């Protein structure tokens, strides 16, 4: 009996003062670095194709408001989680930061340089400082490439190392940094010889050889088995601590965000509707959308059955963004003001921490 009891995790009942302790821990681990990435009022619209009839009739051009005024910043050594439902603009935000999509307006400042204003040529040397990890390591790795080729390719693109023998130790070091030790065991394998978790580590290693300052991770563990997810997340966690990397992670899993991120930004229909320290957002949510999202996260403990506050319907079409507060058609507490006036992201009266912001008239 004793072995089972000793090794069992403690039940997850939030003890009195637990929130304070979390806040204290966050303060200790978050020896704040300088701001690496600053996104200001970013907007990315995609035009909707008009049919022939509409073109002839000069129907107004319509746009998908994928990212519609997003502002946040990210410090070195910090992990921010961007959470929200599909279609809320998480991935578009990442793609705009990465420069894969040109923003309609707004700025993305990386280390003091506004990268939205740069030309393709000026951007190229900066690209190695921003690296992306994709959701599906079964798709993102070339099946015909050995692990060494996958990791060598970005080095060739960016002109790192003059010969194979010079690059080899760097490849091995990246593999070991990504937790694939000993590197010799993995370096000559093909993706099909690796498990999902190992593949994702190879993808991470291929970013690490460029020693990026900013890592963008789009749902990095959602395709992986439950048993290995924690390991990959712990790897990301160690990268920002030891390598001082800033990590922007997209996830739809609030439990993961609560555990691994320093800060959480909740997106709804192209906007950040709430952001703050992870513990503040999870334990003291201010925006009704965040509250609803948190209430539907299934808890591990079967005794902890809370009544989920299920919102009806799905996120509206980002072509026709509702007037006023964009959440008002689904909001359980919306008033007349919410139907006309668009709320700004500000510190709510009830929020304890100064860096806890919500875009709600009633918060």
């Amino acid at each position, binding site marked *: *009996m004793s*072995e*089972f009891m000793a*090794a*069992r*995790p*403690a*039940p*997850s009942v*939030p003890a009195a003062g*637990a929130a304070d302790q*979390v806040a204290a821990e966050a303060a200790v681990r978050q020896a704040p670095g300088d701001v690496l990435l600053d996104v200001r009022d970013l907007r990315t619209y995609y035009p909707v194709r008009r049919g022939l009839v509409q073109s002839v009739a000069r129907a107004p051009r319509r746009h998908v408001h994928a990212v519609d005024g997003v502002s946040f910043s990210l410090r070195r050594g910090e992990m921010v989680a961007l959470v929200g*439902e*599909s279609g809320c603009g998480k991935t578009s935000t990442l793609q705009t930061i990465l420069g894969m999509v040109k923003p309609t307006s707004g700025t993305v400042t990386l280390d003091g340089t506004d990268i939205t204003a740069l030309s393709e040529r000026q951007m190229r040397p900066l690209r190695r400082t921003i690296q992306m990890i994709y959701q599906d390591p079964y798709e993102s790795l070339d099946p015909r490439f050995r692990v060494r080729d996958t990791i060598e390719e970005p080095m060739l693109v960016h002109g790192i190392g003059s010969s194979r023998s010079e690059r080899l130790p760097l490849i091995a070091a990246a593999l070991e940094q990504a937790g694939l030790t000993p590197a010799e065991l993995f370096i000559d394998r093909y993706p099909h010889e690796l*498990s999902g*978790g190992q593949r994702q580590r190879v993808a991470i290693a291929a970013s690490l050889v460029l020693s990026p300052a900013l890592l963008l991770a789009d749902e990095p563990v959602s395709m992986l*088995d*439950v*048993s*290995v*997810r*924690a*390991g*990959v*997340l*712990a790897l990301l966690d160690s990268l920002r601590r030891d390598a001082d990397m800033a990590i922007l992670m997209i996830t*739809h*899993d*609030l*439990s*993961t965000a*609560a*555990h*691994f991120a320093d800060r959480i930004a909740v997106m709804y229909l192209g906007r950040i509707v709430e952001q703050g320290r992870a513990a503040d957002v*999870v*334990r003291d949510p201010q925006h009704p959308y965040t509250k*609803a*999202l*948190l209430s*539907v*996260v*299934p*808890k*591990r*403990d*079967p*005794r902890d*059955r809370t009544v*989920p506050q*299920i*919102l009806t319907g*799905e996120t509206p079409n980002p072509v026709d963004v509702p007037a006023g507060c964009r959440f008002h058609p689904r909001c359980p507490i919306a008033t007349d003001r919410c139907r006309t006036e668009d709320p700004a992201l500000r510190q709510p009266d009830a929020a304890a921490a100064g860096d806890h912001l919500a875009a709600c008239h009633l918060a």
Partner: protein
Amino acid sequence: MSLLEVSDLNVWFDLPGGGQVHAVQGVSFALDGGQRFGLVGESGCGKTTTILALMGLLPPNAEVSGDVRIDGRSVLAGGEDSIRPHRWKDIAMVFQGAMNALNPVKKVGWQIAEPMALHGVAEGSAARKRAGELLELVGIPASAAERYPHEFSGGMRQRASIAMALACQPKILLADEPTTALDVMVQAQILELLTSLSDELGLALILVTHDLPVVAQMCDQAAVMYAGKIVEDGPMETLFHAPRHPYTRLLFAATPDLYGREAVVSIPGAPPRLDREITGCSFRQRCDVAMESCATEHPDLITIGAGHRAACLRNTAQREETAEVR
């Protein structure tokens, strides 16, 4: 007698190069109407194979043994002939990714009515009327029967595929990862629907998922599968608060909880290959409390308490110790 009784179910797959994979190894459980039962574990542990075997829908290279009874009638012994009268009428399934498997060129209502005609439950206008009722039952207006799948959102398509599974009024519904591709809010809507269906229609529900919190919130009973075997089963509360197999405990510890404060730890290693005989405990290489005897002795699934079974030598060793003390 339970509604569904599965005893000593085994499934082997013939490999193209010769040899066999023993994908399901002696699985037994029973289920009553209105009960919700979770089947959890990592991918490749035999969850989906188990429920496909119950439906008699395994590919031709599969070999099945054991006994599956619905209402006391054996449905496995006579092969296809014995399962056909029960499939969809008594036992139905929502497949993984079913929401993406609707026929894009047929109206949703037609697709729901089709199995009714095939199984002689209803035809023509009666079937169409029933399709509308089924859509209402899963929370879609009956008028949507005249629409095509592409006009539906992901959540609505998943509701429609649940309606399709319910077309012939089954008593048992098998759901394979019904919410994996869905957003949290839509996931909550679908889980609420499945819960109310099992309560109101008295459906026995088997939920196959790797998502422990979903099972924790929805199911009364669950079985944890590892390498083709049930390694622990029992009431959900017991599995979380007093697990007696290290795999169950480690799976919970690898799952982050919204308000959980302890570290989330992954389980090292990977499940073993099932194309060769495993001596001893199949989990021992990944186990944090393995003993010497785990390498040689095979742990049996033994009863620990009321409705609670686990297959770990630590339980056996402990029982002998207590016996000696007495």
